[in-house]
């Protein structure tokens, strides 16, 4: 038995030296519609039963096995699992970095010397020819002016040419400031994403051209900065392209105040209770406060006009940083509170823009009192004008 085994192995090894097998798969690849040549692209052959990891590749054109333009030539016997008559094999052009590839075609291995795969067409990726980003205000162009305590509609609009005429998909746009990055999570201050963009397929009368509009509602506290809109588009072959454009969001100075301030009933020659007044930053930058008051007309030197007599401007006072509750002497009133003026003055307040998307954290208290001099009585009304400023206060 051992003797026969040795003879068997010797003959078997000898036979292997001279025997080989090849079964060629030949196919042709058309250039992309946009004119990009198929030559130089890589085509891959595999058996779906064993998966794409067991594959054979070739370069299309004269640089590959075929030596012919737009043609490839592969030996399916070079697959690790080989190939047999009846096997169904897949072939496709793969993306080697230039975004050009194809869908796969299938062929069945026959008993002939070779098999011809169905023709492949190199897919053209879509092309974003123009992208703009702006709000609905025509002036100033390419600048975005936010809306106090509300949102501004901003559109990122692109013209997309899909040479193959395939439908667009996976459209999205990210609008983000230079204080953020493309991949950051959404944040009303600096990062917005829209994955439900509108497609106008009737744009320009060209069936291959689509206008894509990705809208954003930009909040009043979005960063005053340079912003980038980056749009992604792919065709139904998932060939993805992107393009971007910049715009500027302008500074918005805005302040909101509880109104009216009600000092209640105050007796003559008395100081009112302290009235806290909420001040809200409804803009997108850190603000200081500008304040002034008047009775009936600006600059009249009066804080309130009463049914009997007036309260002069100096008798209405405020503290922008701390509360001093309880009864006060006149001296304490004068030392703990600043007097209002009838011309605007800027005071340090340092109230930053809102940064919390859930609850408004851009709110600070101010504290107010009024002194009623002698011979003033009945109902009193006046005006305090709050303003926002980026200037340093006195």
């Amino acid at each position, binding site marked *: 038995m051992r003797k*026969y085994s040795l003879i068997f192995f010797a003959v078997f090894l000898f036979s292997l030296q001279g025997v*080989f097998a090849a079964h060629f798969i030949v196919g042709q690849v058309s250039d992309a519609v946009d004119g990009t040549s198929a030559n130089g692209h890589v085509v891959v052959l595999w058996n779906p039963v064993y998966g794409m990891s067991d594959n054979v590749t070739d370069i299309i054109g004269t640089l590959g096995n075929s030596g*012919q333009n737009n043609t490839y*030539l592969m*030996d399916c016997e070079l697959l690790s699992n080989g190939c047999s008559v009846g096997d169904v094999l897949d072939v496709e052009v793969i993306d080697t970095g230039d975004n050009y590839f194809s869908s796969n075609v299938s062929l069945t291995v026959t008993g*002939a010397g070779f098999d*011809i795969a169905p023709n492949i067409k190199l897919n053209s990726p879509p092309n974003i020819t123009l992208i703009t980003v702006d709000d609905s205000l025509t002036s100033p162009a390419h600048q975005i002016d936010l809306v106090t305590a509300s949102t501004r509609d901003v559109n990122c609009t692109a013209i997309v040419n899909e040479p193959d005429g395939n439908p667009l998909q996976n459209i999205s746009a990210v609008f983000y400031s230079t204080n953020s990055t493309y991949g950051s999570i959404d944040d009303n201050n600096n990062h917005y994403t829209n994955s439900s963009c509108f497609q106008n397929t009737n744009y320009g009368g060209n069936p291959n051209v689509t206008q894509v509009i990705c809208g954003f509602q930009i909040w009043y506290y979005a960063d005053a900065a340079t912003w980038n809109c980056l749009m992604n588009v792919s065709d139904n072959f998932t060939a993805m392209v992107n393009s971007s454009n910049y715009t500027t969001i302008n500074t918005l100075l805005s302040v909101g105040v509880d109104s009216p301030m009600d000092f209640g009933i105050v007796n003559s020659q008395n100081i009112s209770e302290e009235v806290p007044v909420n001040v809200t930053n409804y803009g997108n930058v850190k603000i200081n406060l500008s304040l002034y008051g008047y009775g009936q007309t600006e600059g009249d030197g009066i804080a309130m006009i009463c049914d009997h007599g007036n309260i002069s401007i100096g008798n209405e006072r405020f503290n922008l940083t701390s509360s001093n509750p309880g009864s006060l002497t006149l001296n304490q009133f004068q030392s703990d509170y600043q007097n209002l003026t009838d011309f605007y003055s800027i005071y340090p307040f340092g109230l930053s823009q809102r940064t919390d998307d859930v609850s408004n954290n851009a709110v600070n208290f101010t504290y107010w009192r009024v002194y009623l001099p002698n011979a003033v009585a009945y109902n009193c009304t006046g005006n305090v004008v709050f303003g926002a400023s980026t200037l340093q206060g006195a």
Partner: protein
Amino acid sequence: MKLKMTASKYIVLAFLMVIILASALFAVSAPDSRTVNLVEGKNTISFNVSNPFSVETFVKLNPAIETVSYHEGNETVGYVNTFGGVGKNFLIESGKDYEIFSSSNITLNIPG
């Protein structure tokens, strides 16, 4: 035990006969002959020619040939008779085994 040994011998002998018959059937040596017959399907041939000739010329002389190929390392070098001839136009020379696939039984025309 004796019966088992005998059966094994028959199996090995049968396998050897199959190998030898297959080699005889598909491997054709063409020393310096100008008339070599190919069967329909796969043929393995080694040539003995003084002047190498191109596979393109060879296939043009024998249109029934579908493919000609040989192995070089782990790769197959092939020429396919379609689309006007696909593949490297290699030289056919002595000392190599070529696999030739023919669409019919033919007598080879060898250039030279």
